[in-house]
């Protein structure tokens, strides 16, 4: 038991104690009442998403995938079906079926499993024609895993309006892209 050397409370101290306690209880109820009618902070994402709470990622954000449209070939993409992205993908999330020879080679089917993808950016770097990119769109949540597989139409739709692939920013020494673009010349 700890030593109790406390002076006994006088009647006046007891009274001020009680009054102070009552006042603080009433103040506390005022605080909760104010909160009761305050605007709620909950964002019911994705059902009632507040536009002002939309987050705008920095350039270079690794979001959902897109195939950039070919300016010379309406409805087509820049992709030449070279399989570089599919071959480099560490988790084998990309599957392509392409037809044609040389410059006429274009993908008939293009699947990226966003559920399998680990967003390592290697496919984007591997692309020799700058066709495949990741957008800044992060609303890529689905109810079932099979809906996470993006097909050619999805990729084309997301690619609309995108002129050039995303560039990782800042392009510093940690980025493989900058390391490759600036060889040992320096």
């Amino acid at each position, binding site marked *: 038991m700890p030593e109790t050397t406390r002076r006994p409370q006088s009647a006046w101290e007891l009274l001020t104690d009680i009054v102070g306690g009552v006042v603080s*209880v009433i103040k*506390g109820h005022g605080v*909760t009442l104010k*909160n*009761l*009618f*305050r605007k*709620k902070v*909950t964002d*019911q994402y994705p059902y009632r998403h507040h536009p002002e709470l939309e987050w705008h990622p920095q350039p270079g954000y690794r979001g959902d995938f897109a195939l950039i449209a070919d300016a010379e070939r309406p409805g087509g993409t820049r992709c030449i079906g070279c399989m570089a992205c599919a071959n480099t993908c560490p988790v084998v999330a990309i599957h392509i079926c392409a037809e044609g020879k040389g410059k006429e080679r274009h993908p008939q089917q293009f699947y990226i499993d966003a559920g399998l993808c680990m967003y390592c950016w290697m496919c984007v770097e591997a692309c020799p024609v700058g066709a495949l990119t990741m957008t800044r769109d992060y609303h890529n949540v689905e109810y079932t895993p099979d809906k996470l597989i993006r097909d050619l139409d999805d990729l084309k739709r997301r690619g609309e309006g995108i002129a050039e692939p995303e560039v990782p920013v800042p392009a510093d020494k940690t980025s493989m892209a900058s390391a490759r673009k600036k060889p040992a010349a320096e």
Partner: protein
Amino acid sequence: MINFLQNTGAALKDWFIALLNGWGVPDEWSRLIGDIFAWAIGAAWGIIVIMLAALVFIYLERKVAGYIQSRLGPTRCGPAGIFQSFPDALKLLLKEDIVPEDADKLLHLLGPIAFFIAGTLAFIVIPWDQGKTTALGVDLNIGVLFVTGVGSLTMAGIIMGGWGSNNKWSLLGAIRGAAQMISYEVPMLLALLCIVMQAQTMSLTGIVENQHGGLFSWNVIRPWLWLPMVLYAISAVAEVNRTPFDLPEAESELVSGYHTEYSGMKFALFFLGEYGNTYLVAIIFTVLFLGGWQSPFGNPDPLHLPGVLWLLGKSFAIVLVMMWIRWTLPRLRVDQLMGLAWKLLIPAGFLSLAVMTAVILLGWA
């Protein structure tokens, strides 16, 4: 139809007796069976009221808790989540009923039943409307005594559940519950005594009729009853084990107190009993201080609303205030809890009793 709604018990009893007579049952027999039928309806009424009130209050509780914490509360089940209680109730019904291996099986079973019955019994004497108590229950001339006596029986259920679970947390919760209820019975009874002295009757109907004549003749307006009102409010919250007096089921200390070892329907009975008790003390507060079924605009009611609507509206407001208190104040320590009851509320109860006596002697009441 209006008669049926306002006097359900009597109307159903008349219909049942007529039905039995139509089947050729002798008159005395059909009258006896009709009486039993009416008692059954009176009992069912209490249970139905508790069930419905619990469904509404669980939703309100979660919504109020969310709003006070700047959240939204339930939103997914129906518009603004108003149907949330139904899947919750269904889930409770479907859950497995687990009895601990070394538990006292009989006590473990009887605990929640005793708790629920004790909570339900007091609804018998509630005066729902003018002259309508007898239809759904009885107007006892010791109504106040009955309510407090039966209300403290819930403690038996808590002790049985806590002891029968064979779990130290349950037992500690039950012991705390018993100590708390015994302590807070005293200031509550002292407060009730002041009301009884004011109304010169122990019948709840009599107490309501004593506040006849609009807002300004309610007990809440009489200054010498303000102290008893505060005492009753505090000890009523303590009596139904709600925060800040929820020591018997303190989650952070005792897991979940006396209902730690309960699941499924037995837990639901504890839960229902708790909400039933909460609603009961809100109704009793309304009856004692806010004029019961009477309209605040004087008698007869200029709005011609049925008295039961006034009673329900007032008691719902009181329940909302109790929720407000619950989500504002933190839990008391055990010694603070006991100190509040014995060092503050009971002396204040005696003081208010003295004031009340003086008021009666001076002839102001």
